[in-house]
């Protein structure tokens, strides 16, 4: 006859156009660090739509694939207790970005420890060229320091000059804002992919 029946035509059309599954989302490997109690596990669990109940202190690593609309972040979260922090650098190799979480309402001593750890990370040979997302968490607490205070105290302007970093306030009760911060990080990760590789 020379004509396709309608069902055959539809099948043909589908076979030609739907050649396979859509291209997978790009994946990025990230490391998530910060002192114990800063809220790393809670934030990442909430991003994965997991229940915030039964969260215990991480005493090793916790690897999660965190899905976003346009990327999947494979995050290796590391426990922040004293005896675990000394092993952080064992996990840096292969990272494409860093998430640093701090408790905006912590004691002066703890804030100083957090600052030292952030500075070490910013200068570590395996992390120093990577984008950093710094989350000033626990903003819901009355004692929380503002982002301006944190930026000043952590000396980010002089110390992190020339590096790509984002500093954002956050708390568990506003996950939309947390997601927005991660979206910004994903943009930095995408930009980096487009650059010619350097030694």
């Amino acid at each position: 006859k020379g004509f396709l029946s309608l069902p055959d035509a539809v099948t043909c059309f589908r076979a030609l156009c739907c050649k396979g599954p859509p291209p997978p989302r790009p994946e990025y490997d990230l490391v998530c660090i910060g002192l114990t109690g800063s809220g790393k596990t809670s934030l990442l669990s909430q991003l994965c739509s997991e229940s915030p109940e039964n969260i215990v202190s991480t005493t090793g690593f916790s690897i999660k694939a965190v899905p976003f609309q346009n990327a999947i972040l494979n995050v290796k979260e590391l426990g922040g207790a004293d005896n675990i922090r000394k092993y952080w650098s064992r996990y840096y190799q292969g990272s494409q970005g860093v998430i640093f979480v701090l408790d905006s309402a912590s004691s002066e001593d703890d804030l100083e420890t957090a600052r030292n750890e952030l500075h070490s990370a910013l200068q570590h040979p395996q992390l120093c060229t990577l984008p950093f997302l710094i989350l000033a968490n626990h903003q819901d607490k009355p004692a929380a320091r503002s982002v301006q205070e944190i930026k000043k105290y952590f000396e980010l302007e002089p110390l992190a000059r020339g590096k790509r970093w984002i500093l954002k306030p956050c708390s568990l009760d506003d996950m939309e804002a947390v997601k927005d911060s991660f979206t910004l990080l994903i943009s930095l990760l995408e930009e980096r992919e487009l650059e010619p590789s350097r030694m």
Partner: protein
Amino acid sequence: MSSSRPRVAAPGPEKKPPPGAGGVLSRLRGRRGSGDAALRAGLPRSEAELLELETVRPEHVLGLGRVTENYLCKPEDNIYNIDFTRFKIRDLETGTVLFEIAKPSASEQDDDEEDDNGDVDTSAGRFVRYQFTPAFLRLRTVGATVEFTVGDKPVSNFRMIERHYFRDRLLKNFDFDFGFCIPSSRNTCEHIYEFPQLSEDLIRLMVEHPYETRSDSFYFVDNKLIMHNKADYAYNGGQ
């Protein structure tokens, strides 16, 4: 240091084989490639050959075409005291936890009785039987979380290779590098697991033949096999 990204076996060799290497060797060579020239000469592929080996390495198990009859190592080979304490599967499309099993903590377990006969079934902790409903085989993406503890020795280069079969057919090979593990740590890893596309016929067969879907989980430290767990699966639950 090894990365932590999961390595899913693609159909066919991952890398272009070097000149002179045959197709079989390319398939058996893991993503990182074996540097051991002696192995390239004649890679053992049958379980019998592996049982003869002094040390079983990742490239050996990657060539297995069916689930093994025997365990390829002894419980005592787990010198790092790695213990799997929790396993959970979530449907990533809905977030629902489909399955979760956790080992009771040491304080909750009864003290083991003295067993003077030495008849303890040391394989009991190495085998799990799962029963799911047929709907499970229609899932597309799940998040599989595994939790494990490590003894007081640091573990470098911890890698898991898990192979799922229906009868003699490999359904999926899963290859995951945990990398370094901190001594006395408790670690979790959730990876996104994409179900292989199963034909209707295969799904029907898997439902009608409970426990003929089986898996071997091989665990390596520094490329040496230290643990081997097994599981089997039924998909006729709720019927």
